[in-house]
């Protein structure tokens, strides 16, 4: 199993080197366009620059969480927006906690 691996894979940072188009984002998260648009409207996903429907990695991450929360917990769009906002706030607070 732990065969020695000699090849080093080189990737690039999605957020810096590319912006995802809406179709790509849909494909990556296996969701319908409509769901992405709803989340944009709710302010969960931010297109940059606004109006052009190009997205960065934060959107990729949020869309994946949003998709799971909707699927698993039956949360609606507003609920997802609130949940993600609170989750990110918890993350920020936990980062600030002294170790």
């Amino acid at each position, binding site marked *: 199993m732990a065969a020695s691996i000699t090849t080093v*894979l080189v990737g690039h940072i999605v*957020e810096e080197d590319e912006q995802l188009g809406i179709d790509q984002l849909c494909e990556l998260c296996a969701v319908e366009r409509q769901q992405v648009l709803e989340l944009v409207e709710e302010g969960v996903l931010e297109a940059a620059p606004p109006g052009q429907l190009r997205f960065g990695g934060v959107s990729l991450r949020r869309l994946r969480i949003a998709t799971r929360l909707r699927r698993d917990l039956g949360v609606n769009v507003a609920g997802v927006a609130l949940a993600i906002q609170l989750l990110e706030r918890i993350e920020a607070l936990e980062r600030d906690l002294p170790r």
Partner: protein
Amino acid sequence: MKFKDYYDIMGVPRDATADQIKQAYRKLARKYHPDVSKEADAEARFKDVGEAYEVLRDPEKRAAYDQLGSGPPPGQEFRPPPDWGSGFEFSGAGRPGPAEHGGFDGTGDSSEFFETLFGRAGAARARQRRPRERGEDHHARVIIDLDAALEGGARALTLRVPEVDAEGRVHLRERALNVKIPRGIQAGQHIRLAGQGETLPDGSKPGDLFLEVVFAPHALYRAEGSDLYRELPVTPWEAALGSQLQLPTPGGAVDLRIPAGSKAGTRLRLRGRGLPSRPPGDLYVTLQIALPPADSAAARAAYEAFAAATPFNPRLPNGA
């Protein structure tokens, strides 16, 4: 095989109504959802709950499951009765909804118990998709050390990949990858590895693998976006009188000037000394005042002289 008591998992009585079961599911799903929960075994519990709900929400499956009673006596292996499933007609997969509980990201992996009773049909929610031109993209979250982002360099990562074998069972396979971590990558960003996603049997274009980066706690630095934070202990006189010292930073040592009159919690910013992202982040240094111990006659005498020379009561503002 171990018997699974779905009623016990859901915490409902055996005569629970459909509404009670739904409520219990919602509550447990919120509690153990891997995106939300901080419990160590959240993912496993979430799967158990999902599986239990999948059976108990479905009148056909629930009725069939109820025939098993509450399982074999403790410690004894469970074997499905020989006449299992006869007389029941399972309508099988196809219902969308919260039932796709498994795998967290991607393939469902139900327990052996579930699959023996209800087959893969109920579990794997067969992906009815059009013939695909390329493999699916895969996602994984990886924990890397901050030094990798500071210096760049290859790191050995191990991913758990769910795989479906010839009989349709799901196994977790460990996959070792050696990945070059791009310098300056930040937590929450993704590394895209072209062609490392799903490979289709027909050998057409494989999908990509996306790695979401999370940093392991670092002895010195805490990262937030491209900025780094650290604490720096100084002596009371360095803080009060000001001083200059050499501070090692990720980009090399710098001269740090502590301004006179600094307090505990004073934050100094070193521009461009954070993560080497594009643009580079800043390094924030928070001062801590460390008190020298009064563990010698000389030190005690110095404290006493200081006390005599300085009328200072730090509690005055809060009235003590």
